[in-house]
């Protein structure tokens, strides 16, 4: 597997989605195992290694080959604001996945079983990307709704609530 500066596009359907032109195309420079999960990985130039690690581990956890750069910056800032240790934790999580070659589907179970101090980190990252929400309880805040990944994941069939599905009666048709 290539580990250097491999560039991926999302395919034709990506062009129809919001922010398609603003996708961050990540460049990779990680170990072979992580790269097999995220073959394009790592931030360009990586002036900030922690941010790069966040992007890489985000890509692994959400199973995406490209992520919006500006939004990634907002999520990273918000997660770091909640927990000054977050940048180091995200990097430690990436290193753990790399060093032990952990499948994303096994990750949470392993962290829970080992009572790892990192056990909440994947949940925070995936919730940020998929729900658009950072933080817990009264400190939670919404950073994305219609561009949260869970809305994008179904955007070929559904509109986010409050957005019109279509003209009156359009919902009677079989979804395709």
């Amino acid at each position, binding site marked *: 597997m290539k580990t250097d500066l491999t560039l991926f596009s999302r395919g034709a359907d990506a062009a129809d989605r919001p922010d398609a032109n603003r996708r961050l195309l990540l460049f990779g420079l990680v170990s072979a195992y992580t790269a097999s*999960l995220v073959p394009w990985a790592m931030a360009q130039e990586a002036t900030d290694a922690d941010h790069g690690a966040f992007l890489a581990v985000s890509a*692994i*956890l*959400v*199973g995406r080959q490209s992520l919006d750069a500006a939004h990634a910056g907002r999520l990273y800032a918000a997660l770091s604001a909640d927990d000054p240790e977050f940048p180091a934790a995200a990097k430690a999580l990436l290193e753990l996945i790399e060093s032990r070659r952990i*499948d*994303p*589907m096994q*990750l*949470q*179970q392993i962290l*829970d079983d080992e009572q790892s101090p990192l056990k909440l980190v*994947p*949940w925070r990252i*995936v*919730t940020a990307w*998929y*729900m658009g*929400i950072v*933080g817990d*309880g*009264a400190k*939670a*805040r*919404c950073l994305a*709704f*219609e561009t949260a*990944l*869970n*809305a994008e*994941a*179904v955007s070929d*069939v*559904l*509109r986010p*609530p*409050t*957005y*019109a*599905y*279509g*003209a*009156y*009666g*359009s*919902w*009677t*048709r*079989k*979804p395709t």
Partner: protein
Amino acid sequence: MADTLSADFVVVGSGIIGSLVARKLALAGASVIILEAGPRVTRAELVARFRNSTRRSDWMSPYPSVEWAPHPIYQPEPNHHIVQAGPYPYAAEYIRQVGGTTWHWAAHAWRNVPNDFRIKSLYDVGVDWPFGYDDLEPFYQEAEELMGVSGADNTGSPRSQPFPMEPVAEPYAMRRLRERLASDYPVVSNTTARNSRVYDGRPACCGNNSCQPICPIDAQYHGGLSADAAEAAGAQLIPNANVYMLEHDEQGRIAAALYYDPDKASHRVTGKTFIVAANGIESPRLLLLSKSDKFPGGLANSSDMVGRNLMDHPSTSLTFDADEDVWLGRGPQSPSSINTMRDGAFRSEHSPYRLDFTNISRVDGATRSLIAAGVYGSELEKRLRYSAAREMNVKNVLEVLPDPERRITLSSETDSMGIPKPQAHYSIDDYTRKGHERSQQDFRRIAELMGGTNLRFSKEGEFANNQHICGTLSMGNDPKTSVCDQWGRAHDHENLFLAGTAVLPTSSTCNSTENGLAVALRSVAHILGQDGAAARGAATGEARA
């Protein structure tokens, strides 16, 4: 200046019922003041709050409680506005703001079925209403025309005139339910205050799928529109006016409403007739708060019935994965039901119920479940799409019988305005529980007919609440066992009327709003017929002074 306020009619509460009562009185020429505890909030603000919410599945998240008029909040932390006395928690939700709680309803606008009015006579349970279906029928129609109700005739409630609108176009998922369940169950369109065409200047539904907590285009009727209509008819609406006491004169007639503004300055509003329409919890709370030497148990309470017979609709449910893609979330949220168990001889044994299918998008809920289960990587999107496409849910809507032991009282705790909080004494009895048990066979059969797998029944012993608060100011012919007469007039006070779902003597199996509204419109017709001339005369007299 505020202390000089006076009107023919003073209405406490600007929800759908209080506002439409006020509108009808104002159109008849009376002067009307509406006192609303909460603030004005616009539809655009509510849409923005929803989109920015961190709890999009919590319908209350766009409606935060305000300090000068608190209402119950349960997430992220409960504010304990309703003190729970048990044995079963009554987690009621309602909204104190201009327009009230129907800002975030599913707009179900059902009529009772005729036998709902006579369950004591027919089934020896509950009580009979002081009037029958035929007496209420014209007012159901009036309510439906005001709200703009769409529906079909096959729901068990006879009509003398057609629905204002045809049913809203059936979402594909509901069509599949109807087709695949046809051998066993008729799946019918819900009767809803939702536009299937342009109606009253509001557009047809365009499938935003956020009926709860906010329709962004007013294709769905709500109490904010009622409040607008009341003001357009000439009623004066005062927001942020938290009524904490009704005063009476020596004859026991109501003389004034006292309210706190947000700075807790007290104001006094006088009137000829008072109408309390502040919902099934805040209305009895206000009457209980209005104690005096003459009425030590509060107003309208010589029978000790104020706050008693608290009812709602508990639900249990089944979620399953269908064997085909149906993609809930296209079109309105709550389009279809099965009505076959709303009435029958079995009502002498167990609760009747309506079976209700959701069409709420599964995306947020499925995402949370998958993340909580540690599903990460490319599998997350794959499983999310599967759940969003396949998940379906059916719930029962169970009748609760009137029982004086289920009740709202005043707590020794006070709220942020220093006013004693409401306290709920609630329970789920065997009658309702047996209805739940009976419905489980329907749940299983429905899942079977849909090729369902991964059946997830709601936790045994847990009942979700539907926020159809009723019964706490029940109407009836006997002053010893009811709070008001069939016109909503308090047995104890000639010029005090009660309006809202609180006056309903039984809960039946349908959402309480249309019943409450139709009964209130019937009360207003009575008030105007009996007192209309006097009210119109007074409108130009001292009441305007």
